[in-house]
């Protein structure tokens, strides 16, 4: 029993050692020389480049060869060696490993064992097909490589070099290049840029010899570059242009159509993509803040002006029957009359008010003879008229008077309203039957309901109506104006409009952005209709727009002029007290700064930068000026701007250095980004993204292996925030190969196929 166990143990040890040997020795690579024989020719001269892949085990080589035969896919993680034309390849490989050889004309991949040999000779049957040497001569149709443009806000700057090929260049020819900017998603042509014209020396010279030729009428002369077309190799035209007012968030490409023409015909035409859709946006991570100044409302306050106000009302006076005398039994008669008198007296006695017009209408009831009633109505009206006219200060010339007799139709309406429909119908029947007023009364008086119902209504018709308009020459207080805004439906709906000074009070008091925007818009419209747009309203409207990320640069532009100094004030005529009021302020700092904020929000850094010249010279405005210059691309040419912006924050320093896009600055950018003192959180996606850009530029070769193993900045960045993946897809700072390779890496990562820990070499 014991001996059996020992035998088993020895056996296991033996087997284990064998396995271990394979593993231990397998990991130790030796230099193996492989000679590849062309089986059909019998020599080692290869007619095409071959690739030798080395594997740790022969079984891996076998699987890889089968995979290659099926899908054409080469193993990603096996070491690949190119074989020289003499068919000899020296490589480091485990002696118990395997190899796979692939080539274009090989029908199947070759695989085999190394078998511990330091020198291997492999005959490749698939290499039997020899090709005769064929010399192919073709004219190169070289096209420039698309070069990503640079986006600065709503501006796209692009440049490229177009090489003039000697086979197309002629001294008596002209080359015309026309850049066409196309929106990438929809494919719409956005702009046709100005052409670039290169004339041959003879072409330029002989243009003037044409019949009736006038250079000033040649539209292409202005676009002629300052050098002539030459037939030598390597002549190129540098194309540099920019396009503004592009929509933020949309990508654009630039195609160039070009043609060569001689004196009589176009002898070659073609087009090429000059700028791809993926443009660079080097300052996307730049940290800056642009604030607008608060406006001083007192500079724009409107003076209150006299305004007409109308006040309608009615007096229900009861008169003694048949007389123009107030009924002494009814105390309300005197109360109503006295109230109206005191109301009018208050206006007339105030220093800033006057009654412009007073309209009075006296009415008598229709019972009795019509002529008597008519006279009675007049007398009663005159009674009220005299009472009002007796108020001190009341001007009779401003008063109008009228009297009338109420008709029976009004009586019928009142009966109907009091649900006495039968009686109302009887009255109406009489009105229809005769038009004579006296006859109408006589018949109505005989109605059964006359005594009981109709007589009750008649006193209501014996009344005096009035309406008066008054003018006050005093400003409503801010509280009064706010109260009107809050309570008066007409004012809220816009049926009635505030005066401009009242809008000014409301701007100070109304805090709700929606309400303020409505008021500002109304005030701006009112002032514009008056032919003089009000800067205060435009400013508030612009501010309201900015709060909801909307921009309208036309609002403030009437108050900004480049031919005026900052805060330019135009004074009006001299007042009696010797002062001169400010009539207009041009280039108010608050307005200019708000316009700059709008421009920046729209990405129009160029105009924003131009506007900074209209700000007063302060440290703050200088800072803003430099930042906008930088955002407009000024950092490329101005070291001063570059240094200033780089000094404002570590991130800005890294952004500016990486934006420069050359080796020296890339190294400086990487140094800054790697500094843990400046950036303690090295896993910040922005840092990783910038590192990916900078490090990606120095890569000679990019594939999914490199991006998943060696240069993983972008992968790590996108893992943290997927928005950076979308950003990178359209970022011209990464080469096309880089983007394609990363696309694969990201796909593998999303499918769970990318597990870095599993990768063995």
């Amino acid at each position: 029993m014991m001996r059996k166990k020992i035998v088993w143990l020895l056996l296991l040890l033996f087997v284990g050692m064998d396995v271990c040997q394979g593993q231990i020795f397998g990991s130790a690579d030796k230099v193996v020389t492989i000679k590849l024989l062309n089986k059909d020719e019998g020599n080692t001269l290869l007619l095409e480049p071959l690739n030798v892949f080395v594997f740790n085990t022969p079984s891996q080589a076998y699987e890889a060869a089968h995979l290659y035969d099926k899908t054409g896919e080469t193993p990603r993680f096996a070491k690949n060696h190119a074989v020289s034309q003499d068919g000899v390849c020296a490589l480091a490989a485990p002696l118990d490993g395997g190899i796979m050889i692939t080539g274009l004309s090989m029908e199947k991949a070759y695989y085999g064992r190394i078998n511990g040999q330091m020198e291997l000779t492999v005959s490749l049957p698939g290499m039997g097909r020899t090709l005769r040497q064929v010399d192919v001569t073709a004219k190169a149709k070289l096209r420039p490589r698309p070069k990503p443009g640079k986006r600065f806000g709503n501006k796209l700057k692009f440049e490229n070099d177009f090489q003039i090929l000697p086979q197309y260049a002629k001294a008596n020819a002209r080359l015309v290049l026309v850049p066409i900017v196309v929106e990438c998603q929809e494919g719409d042509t956005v702009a046709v840029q100005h052409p670039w014209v290169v004339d041959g020396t003879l072409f330029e010279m002989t243009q003037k010899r044409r019949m009736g030729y006038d250079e000033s009428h040649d539209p292409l002369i202005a676009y002629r570059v300052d050098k002539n077309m030459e037939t030598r190799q390597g002549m190129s035209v540098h194309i540099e242009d920019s396009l503004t007012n592009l929509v933020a968030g949309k990508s654009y490409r630039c195609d160039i159509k070009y043609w060569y023409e001689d004196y009589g015909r176009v002898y070659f035409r073609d087009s090429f993509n000059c700028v791809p859709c993926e443009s660079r946006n080097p300052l996307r991570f730049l940290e800056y803040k642009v604030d607008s100044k608060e406006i001083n409302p007192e500079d724009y306050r409107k003076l209150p002006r006299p305004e007409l106000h109308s006040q309608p009302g009615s007096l229900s006076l009861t008169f003694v029957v048949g007389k123009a005398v107030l009924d002494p039994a009814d105390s309300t008669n005197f109360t109503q009359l006295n109230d109206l008198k005191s109301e009018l007296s208050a206006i007339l006695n105030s220093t800033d008010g006057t009654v412009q017009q007073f309209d009075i209408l006296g009415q008598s009831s229709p019972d009795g003879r019509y002529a008597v009633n008519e006279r009675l109505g007049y007398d009663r009206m005159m009674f009220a008229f005299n009472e009002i006219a007796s108020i001190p200060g009341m001007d009779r010339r401003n008063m109008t008077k009228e009297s009338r007799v109420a008709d029976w139709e009004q009586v019928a309406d009142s009966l109907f309203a009091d649900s006495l429909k039968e009686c109302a119908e009887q009255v109406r029947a009489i009105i229809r039957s005769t038009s004579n007023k006296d006859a109408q009364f006589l018949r109505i008086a005989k109605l059964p309901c006359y005594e009981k119902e109709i007589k009750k209504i008649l006193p209501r018709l014996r009344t005096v109506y009035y309406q008066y308009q008054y003018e006050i020459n005093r400003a409503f207080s801010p509280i009064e104006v706010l109260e009107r805004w809050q309570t008066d439906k007409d004012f809220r709906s816009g049926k009635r409009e505030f005066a401009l000074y009242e809008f000014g009070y409301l701007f100070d008091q109304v805090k709700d952005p929606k309400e303020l925007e409505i008021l500002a818009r109304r005030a701006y419209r009112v002032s514009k209709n008056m032919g003089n747009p009000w800067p205060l309203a435009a400013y508030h409207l612009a501010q309201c727009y900015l709060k909801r990320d909307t921009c309208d640069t036309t609002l403030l532009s009437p108050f900004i002029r480049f031919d005026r100094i900052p805060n330019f004030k135009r004074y009006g005529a001299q007042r009696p007290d010797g002062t001169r009021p400010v009539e207009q302020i041009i280039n108010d700092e608050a307005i200019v700064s708000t316009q700059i904020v709008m421009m920046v929000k729209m990405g129009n850094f160029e105009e924003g930068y131009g506007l900074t010249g209209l700000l007063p010279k302060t440290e703050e405005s200088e800072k803003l000026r430099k930042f906008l210059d930088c955002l407009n691309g000024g950092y490329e040419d101005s070291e001063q701007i570059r240094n200033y912006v780089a000094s404002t924050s570590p991130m800005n320093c890294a952004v500016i250095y990486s934006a420069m896009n050359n080796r020296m600055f890339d190294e400086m950018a990487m140094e800054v980004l790697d500094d843990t003192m400046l950036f303690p959180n090295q896993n910040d996606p922005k840092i990783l993204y910038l590192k990916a850009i900078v490090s990606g530029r120095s890569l000679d070769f990019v594939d999914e292996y490199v991006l998943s193993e060696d240069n993983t900045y972008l992968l790590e960045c996108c893992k943290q925030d997927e928005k950076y993946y979308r950003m990178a897809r359209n970022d011209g700072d990464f080469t096309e190969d880089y983007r394609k390779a990363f696309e694969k890496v990201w796909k593998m990562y999303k499918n769970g196929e990318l597990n870095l820990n599993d990768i063995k070499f």
Partner: protein
Amino acid sequence: MKRSLFLVIAMLCLGTTAVQAQLLAVKTDVLMDALMVPNLNAELVVGERSSINASAFCSKKIYNKDIRMVGLMPEYRFWMSGRPMSREFIGLAVMGVRYNLTWDKKIYNGNAIGAGVTFGYSFNLSSHWDLECYGSVGAVYYDQKYDRVDNKEEKLSNRHNSYGYSVIPFKLGISFSYIIK
């Protein structure tokens, strides 16, 4: 006659107005100059590919040879390159010449008219200077008095005694031209 004269004058006036906007070049044939034959050419651009060239020449003695002649040679040129006064052209020329010369102990005195086809090439040296090389072949009709120099017995009669056709290269030259406008 009066009507014809009037028409010619009117056409000349119209032509002068049109010339203002056209290119005009003056030139001289250096080969003729080398032969001591003063000559002056003028070329006027009349179309996108067309020009009219007129050349006048005269001589009294050529290297002490008694060769007297005066001639006029108008020519229409078609410029194949598409630009006048540049590169290849083909022309249609007519010629009229009065001559009185002694050559190889023979006297030729008469008139000749002819027409021919010209081929040439204009090198553009600068915006104002061109160099033209050309040659033409044409048929010439001559009507002349012909006699020997040593015929002292018989006085040369005034009557033309020789006429006929001949195909000759009647124009061959290199000229420098200056473009005035």
